[in-house]
């Protein structure tokens, strides 16, 4: 029982990351009709917003080398050097604080990407869109590698979230040992809040209503005198922010490197396809379902019966779902069927 509960938690946590990335992908596909292979790179850029912010806060103030010393002694981080304990506390909270930096930065990156490149490919075949966005992802990756190197750069969660939560005590299972890292639980809650905010924006604001109308029938909305293109540009920016925030908050879980976006991209595309192209709720549902199934497939008991199942489970489920439900779990008729 303990193992099952832990794997459900693992699945929810993984699913939260898949759902956040897939949500942005679906949003862009549903509004702009663009298959954006650079979406993983946006996740990576978000993660590097956190890395950059931390690097600025901890900019090394180098004490002088003693005579005969070949290498400089340990540097003092800038904030600690300037502001003492307050500075150290700010550095401790650098990951959550970097959200404040990541929102405008990612919005700007999203707007530039859409206005500068992607809008020129709206009417081009999907293959062209895939090629250009994949190319852009590689360019962004290489730039980040040039600046930050190829090695992962660890980021710490605030110290108060470093330990594990005693889930068994929460569930009143006194003889069980079920713990789960605080930061992963926070990531799950954060993902739920962001997903909820995106749904609320689309469903309960006039702006969101127009966007939804544009997703259904772009021409009619245009005929009503609404500049739907401009709104779609903003939607692309929002998708970039969602991917970026997913990246920022993931840094304490997985030390980011230039390739981190690609690792999620392929799985997120599978999530989008399983959820149903263009379906936001489908993407979220599929994210969690696949995350949980992947976790269960990794259990030793399961692998002893089906060796290697953990490596293929997501693709196997995708094949089964597409064979039985060709539009995915919640796909709409007419999307990508021309």
């Amino acid at each position: 029982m303990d193992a099952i509960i832990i794997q459900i938690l693992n699945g929810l946590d993984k699913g939260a990351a898949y759902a956040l990335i897939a949500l942005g992908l679906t949003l862009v596909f549903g509004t702009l009709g663009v298959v954006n292979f650079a979406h993983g790179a946006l996740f990576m850029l978000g993660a590097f917003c956190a890395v950059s912010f931390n690097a600025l806060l901890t900019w090394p103030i180098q004490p002088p080398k003693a005579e005969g010393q070949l290498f400089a002694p340990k540097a003092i981080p800038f904030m600690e050097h300037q502001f003492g304990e307050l500075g150290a506390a700010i550095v401790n909270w650098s990951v959550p604080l970097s959200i404040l930096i990541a929102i405008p930065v990612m919005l700007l990156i999203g707007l530039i990407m859409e206005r500068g490149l992607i809008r020129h490919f709206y009417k081009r075949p999907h293959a062209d869109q895939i090629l250009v966005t994949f190319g852009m992802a590689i360019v962004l990756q290489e730039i980040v590698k040039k600046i930050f190197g190829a090695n992962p750069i660890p980021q710490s969660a605030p110290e108060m979230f470093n330990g594990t939560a005693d889930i068994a005590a929460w569930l009143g299972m006194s003889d069980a040992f079920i713990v789960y890292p605080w930061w992963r639980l926070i990531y799950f809650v954060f993902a739920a809040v962001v997903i909820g905010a995106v749904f609320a924006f689309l469903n309960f604001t006039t702006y969101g209503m127009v966007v939804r109308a544009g997703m259904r029938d772009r021409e009619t909305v245009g005929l009503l005198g609404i500049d739907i293109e401009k709104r779609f540009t903003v939607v692309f920016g929002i998708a970039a922010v969602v991917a970026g925030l997913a990246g920022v908050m993931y840094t304490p879980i997985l030390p980011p490197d230039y390739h981190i976006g690609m690792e999620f991209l392929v799985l997120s595309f599978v999530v989008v396809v399983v959820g149903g192209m263009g379906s936001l709720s489908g993407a979220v549902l599929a994210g969690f379902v696949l995350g949980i199934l992947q976790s269960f497939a990794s259990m030793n008991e399961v692998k002893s019966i089906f060796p290697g199942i953990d490596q293929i489970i997501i693709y196997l489920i995708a094949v089964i779902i597409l064979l039985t439900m060709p539009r995915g779990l919640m796909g709409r008729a007419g999307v990508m069927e021309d």
Partner: protein
Amino acid sequence: MHFDKMNRRGFLTSTAALGAGLAMPTIFTSASRAQEYCNMPTGDTVVFGFNVPQTGAYADEGADELRAYELAVKHLNGEGDGGLLNTFTSKALKGSGVLGKKVAFVTGDTQTKSDAARDSAKRMIEKEGAIMITGGSSSGVAVAVQGLCNEMGIIFMAGLTHSNDTTGKDKKRYGFRHFFNAYMSGQALGPVLAEEYGTDRRAYHLTADYTWGWTQEESIINATEKLGWETVSAVRTPLGAGDFSQYITPVLNSGADVLILNHYGKDMVNSLTQAVQFGLRDKQVNGKDFQVVVPLFSRLMAQGAGKNIEGILGTTNWNWSLQDDASQAFVKSFGEEYGFPPSQAAHTCYVQTLLYADACERAGTFAAPEVIKALEGFEFDGMGNGPTLYRAEDHQCFKKALVVRGNDDKQSEYDLLKVVKEVDREALTYDASIFGGDLGPNEGKSC
């Protein structure tokens, strides 16, 4: 000579002798000798091929290897302070190149992929005239490139490769490894683990699913079970899994009190970070503190793992904090050149370049069969690992290895590993036949 007396037979004999005489010098020209073996240098330079990961996950390690190679070339050509040439016990190299030729080099990018590594090695041999190939940061790549070099008659001086297979079942006559291997890690680490954590332990292995991971898992299981440890489970994880949470959570309730991470590079950084996040290091099992062990460490990896590496035991081939004259000479040369200390990958690559050059000098030729003979069974010192033997039977170096611990009292940003024990080579020596394989014949080949 009386020409008027020359008959037909005499004329034929004389012209044949004259023809043979005229042809004779060409037998000894470099052009015709070049046919004898692959890429024999004909001008005033000899070309070495440095095949390192310049892109991909191990690019930083590759960059450090390349720095070391460039430094070695400088020292061989008489530039800089001479580095380890000053401490190396063989005095065949004089800092004037190798066999009177200046050393030049070409580079290739392995991308840490076997196919790409073979392609770049082939290009350096066929198009750029490399007489020797060296480098790599992965056992998969080392085994693949070693096989290619063996087919082409080019000596391969392996860089960072830790699998037992490189000089075991996949050993080749033309391949040589200075770096230690997984078996040695197990032998070095075992007694320290027993001393620190006792002999009644239950271990759970997470293992990278490829040649290096398998041999390391096997070696560590053998070493720890000899101590009396029990192996609870050994789980294979896909290379580059990223999120290891689904592999780590089963450890929590497995009854194991030690987690052994047979991971390297990014996998090790991620799995260790996540093991710490799941509270394994704060846990008590079977009345003992839970422990995490990383059998193969590198300083560049320790940088990536940050604070999580502190206090964790592992092994390394060499560390810049060693205080012997040779290590300090190398650290000084490298540090003055680049501003930071060398990694173990840089050290082994630098040493391999010097060892090859020295073998050519001692053999008096670049012809591979003679150089191989000079390297086989070669005993030396002054390279940073104490007295060392290049064993003839498997082309594996036997020397000291280090047991290290992640440093929790850093004096500089590079002070990441603390040496716990220097293990003598006698404790690490094994029978060459235990890992199988066949070196093959030592015969000249032309490419």
